[in-house]
């Protein structure tokens, strides 16, 4: 379950700086290797795409995929579940891409998938 925004900000406002190390995070996405299942919402939803873009810019863009990610613009042949799993579990092999399954909820990862899909042709 996603933490309601007002609770999040209320908690953040009350926390001493030391407590901020343990700030409230959304529920974890599924464990690595688990099936992603179908997207829980329409990946063409503009609001979801916008939310995914904001998340992409803060976590994926700087010094990696870029704010105009050439890897995904006009890309075809990707599958939604593969993209979801890669974001959740991190890059396969020895690539430096971190896993985000511990940080983002399922919905938040799917929003990233929605944004990446909106850039491509798949």
């Amino acid at each position, binding site marked *: 379950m996603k933490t309601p925004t007002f609770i*999040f*900000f209320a908690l*953040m406002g009350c926390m001493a*700086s030391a407590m*901020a*190390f343990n*700030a*409230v*995070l959304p529920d974890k996405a599924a464990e690595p290797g688990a099936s992603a299942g179908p997207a829980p919402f329409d990946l063409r939803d503009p609001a979801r795409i916008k939310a995914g873009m*904001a998340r992409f*810019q*803060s*976590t*994926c*863009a*700087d*010094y*990696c*995929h*870029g*704010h*105009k*990610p*050439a*890897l995904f613009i006009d890309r075809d042949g990707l599958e939604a579940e593969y993209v979801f799993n890669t974001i959740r579990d*991190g*890059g396969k*092999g*020895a*690539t*430096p*891409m*971190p*896993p*985000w399954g*511990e*940080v983002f909820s399922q919905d938040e990862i799917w929003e990233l998938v929605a944004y990446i899909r909106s850039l491509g042709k798949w």
Partner: protein
Amino acid sequence: MKTPMRPALRPVVSALCIALFCGSAAANNWAEYNGDKAGSRYLAGGKVNAQSVKSMKVAWRWSMPDNKVWQDNAELRTWVNQSTPLAIDGVLYSSSPMAMVSAIDGSTGKTLWTYDPKAYVEGTPPNLGFISRGLSYWADGKDKRILVGTGDGYLIALNAKTGKPIENWGDKGRIDLTKGLRRFVDRSLVSLTSPPIVCGNTVVPSLAVLDSFAVGRSPMKSHPPGDIQAFDIRTGKRVWHFEQPPQEGQPGNETWEDGSWKTTGSANMWARPSCDEELGLVYLPFSTPTNDFYGGHRKGNGLFGESVVALNAKTGKIAWYQQIVHHGLWDYDLPTAPNLMDLTVNGKKVKALAQVTKQGFVFTFDRSTGQPVWPITEKPVPQSTVPGERSSLTQPFPSLPAPFVQQGVTEDDLIDLTPQLKEEAKKILSRYNYGPLYYPPTLDKAGTLQVPGVLGGASWAGAAHNPKTNVLYVPSFTIPFGIKLKKENEGVYDYTGTWAGVGGPQGLPLFKPPFSTVTAIDMNTGKHLWRIPAGKGPVDHPALKDLKLDRVGVPRESFIALTDEVLFLAPEGTNSVIGLSSRGNALITQATAEEKEPFLYAHDARTGNLLGEIRLPGAAFGALMTYRANGRQYVVVPIGGAGLPAELVAVQVD
């Protein structure tokens, strides 16, 4: 009739001419990658001033010869173009990402000759792929040579006039740097990206080694070591071999526990060293041992990882050393050649060395003895909680100069230009563990928010120094990185690092502006003189445009070159990862074609005020240089690469 000079005056005038380069051709040259062997990035004299830089114009553009190679073979795409030329008596000598070497007419940009070492035949070099940051020049009478390092591990000596290899040097003009080390070295794991330095009669090459945590290849315990090999400049014969880590019986070996000195790799010197030929010392800036973010297998301080080491250039014997980071866990490699300078501190003359660092410090030492110019204190730092890790209890903190960039993270550091941006930034921050400088890498959440990030702070762009004023100009930027360790179930390490650059809300940076700066420091006193944003930055962003901000700095590193009155500055362009090389050893990227701020700026070297600017045909990706030819002065900017044509752009500045 000319008045003959009185004999008694001749030595005085000669000395002055040496000091001021009295109209000689040498006065117009940029004879070393960093301007000189002291790493100054400075050219004295000339007519460049506040007025002349108001009418800067592009004089010529030069297309690099390897553009055709990668355009014909997509497998061989290069990294961004970081190749900065030398200028010798009106001729420019340039490398290219694939280490092709060309001589160019300095007035017209016309190619005189090109040498192709075919360093691309076996595929892409490690880490960031094809990079050649520049060349070295050496002359003895009519014997004039160009030295280039290649992406496939060779050091090559060329005849500067013809571009042909020096047949009686090394093995028919080249030396294989993968040979002669203590263990087999896989050629795909090493690359010569920085030009070597010639110190006296000794040439000392740098060697980049795959950061195995980072790209493609699974980490190896027996990684290429950080050894330095030095060679006779005339013959190419090896004259000494400095072993890194130090082997049994050598000083520093005791700082590697459980025999970890036998297998630990990297701790290499990928940046260029500096040299004081009068003292006969070469100053080596070393990097982090493997792997960059976890050291449970290499307990101890790990000399000479992340250390400045002064070696006798003739013998390779240690004169002194200072470790900048103990038991490194942050990839805080020493990223650039130390700046050598002759200071007057509290009335006392000091031959000094200043090392700028990724973590935002300037460490200043007496370069004869290694003693700190200002006190350096060991202070307690946060400790790692990762199983098997034993982080250093303390790290060295210099008392002067003050840090030139944000260090560590508090909520007060977050961008707060609008209340909404601040709230969104707090949410991003909550994903990470964070704390003061040297907060160690972590396993949970999105890892540790590392500030400065792995790229700096100061970076490979280095710092410029005016030896007449002893002002040091340090470009820096604040791009945090998230460092998250992951447990390895296979392979040789218990943990390896993953990383990602961390942005802020709405595509803006996470922390308060300025997002990048140049800090001017009076090195006689250690005090900051001024600090300016490096470039305009995203002031026109929809969330900021109503604030009517002036300049906040481009959130990238900046390249600089210095004259007596003007500091030239060019913010770096951007590129995005599109995959791994087919060899699995390097990141492959696409440079941004429509860059937001592809500018060369001219600032008043005394005040930092902006004097002039010119829009370039592409953003800078390599170090700047400046030279004079035919009575005009130029600043040269490397642009392109990574899917765009690699070029040099010469801007006339007087």
